């Protein structure tokens, strides 16, 4: 078993479903925790657009109701990310990953701007379609090995098919778009800086975590 995350620091068992932290996943967890705290405390940016070719500029207002909704979605996204970091069960991980996908859309959905909503809609369709490889990969792993527990799979009772791992990674990429941020670029034009950054941070974190899972099992 290639032990890329280091030895387990903490294990919380609920029957055969468990949560565990290694130095690697603990680092990612703390990162998500710190950023969620920052998103709770900080005030949204006041975005300013400069009119090209002149001195004029216009400032975009972020209404309080919109800000509240987006902050709530950011906190939910942070919690889902933290859950994905600690989960020791592949199906729970896929559920957390798809929750990250939904909340990423939710973070920008309150913005009343046509191009941002268009981008969020397209990205939402990708996130929705990505549940096929995500859950399909988990189901394939369950069908071939008979378990979803990451430590049990890592112990190597039966080999995990590479197709299952590949589908899982593909699904996480679709949910979070982690290595291909260009696909989300239009979404990042939404005003409200600390909230939109959570989109990229959460997708980066779940991608790093699925890499760890794919190597470990």
């Amino acid at each position, binding site marked *: 078993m290639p032990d890329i995350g280091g030895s387990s620091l903490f294990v919380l068992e609920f029957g055969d479903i468990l949560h565990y932290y290694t130095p690697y996943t603990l680092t990612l967890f703390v990162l998500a925790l710190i950023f969620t705290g920052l998103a709770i405390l900080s005030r949204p940016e006041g975005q300013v657009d400069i009119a090209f070719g002149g001195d004029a500029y216009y400032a975009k207002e972020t209404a309080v109701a919109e800000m509240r909704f987006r902050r709530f979605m950011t906190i939910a996204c942070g919690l889902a990310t933290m859950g994905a970091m600690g989960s020791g069960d592949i199906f729970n991980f896929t559920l957390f990953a*798809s929750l990250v996908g*939904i909340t990423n859309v*939710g973070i920008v959905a309150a913005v009343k701007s046509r191009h941002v909503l268009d981008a969020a*809609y397209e990205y939402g369709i990708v996130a*929705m*379609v990505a549940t*096929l490889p995500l859950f399909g990969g988990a189901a394939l792993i369950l069908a071939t090995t008979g378990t979803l527990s990451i430590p049990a799979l890592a112990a190597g009772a039966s080999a995990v098919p590479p197709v299952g791992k590949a589908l899982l990674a593909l699904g996480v990429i679709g949910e979070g778009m982690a290595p291909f941020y260009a696909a989300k670029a239009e979404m990042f034009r939404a005003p409200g800086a600390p909230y939109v950054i959570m989109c990229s941070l959460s997708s980066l974190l779940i991608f790093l975590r699925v890499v760890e899972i794919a190597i470990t099992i």
Partner: protein
Amino acid sequence: MIPDYSIGLLVAFAAAGVAFFALMRETDGLHRLLLTDLVEVVTLAFIALVGTDLAEALILPGLVVGVSELIALSEIYRVKEGYVRPPAAGLQIEVMESAPGILAAILVVYGIVLSGFSGGAVAGLGVLFYFLCRDHHERFELIETASGYSWVLWIVAFFVFMLLPQYWFFAVMLAGSAILVKVMAKMSLIGTMRGGPNA
């Protein structure tokens, strides 16, 4: 002899291929949203193919994720296309004037007899039909509060199972009735979804 699982997997992959091809060809936003539902069904088929109790338990969260994404995306689509037209008055059908009371009563009583998740679905269908046919200026906070508290009772029942297994019968009864109320309350809200001041 090819095992059944492989045949099922082949069929599911073929269906996924068809769905992705259709998504690639389609350009209309609303139609693409509907086509993603095709992909969701194949996802559930992938899980169902495993064919164990665990797979049955995993289908429900998979379904919930799919439905919540569908609702979120349709809301975004509605806002971005600017659809704000209030819905027209309900259907004018004679049965919807006379039947709802008695039908709802029969379904709710039968649902309470069944209890649990399926009972909640049956009773919820009755209440849904009632709200659909009659006026629905009800106190929604009350329904939501009842749903929330019954969810908490459901979780309490699970803790009883884990921590005090000797009281399993009490926990079964608690979980059965709490999930009945919760599913019923949630489903009945669907009957009120037709615009208006409460929507």
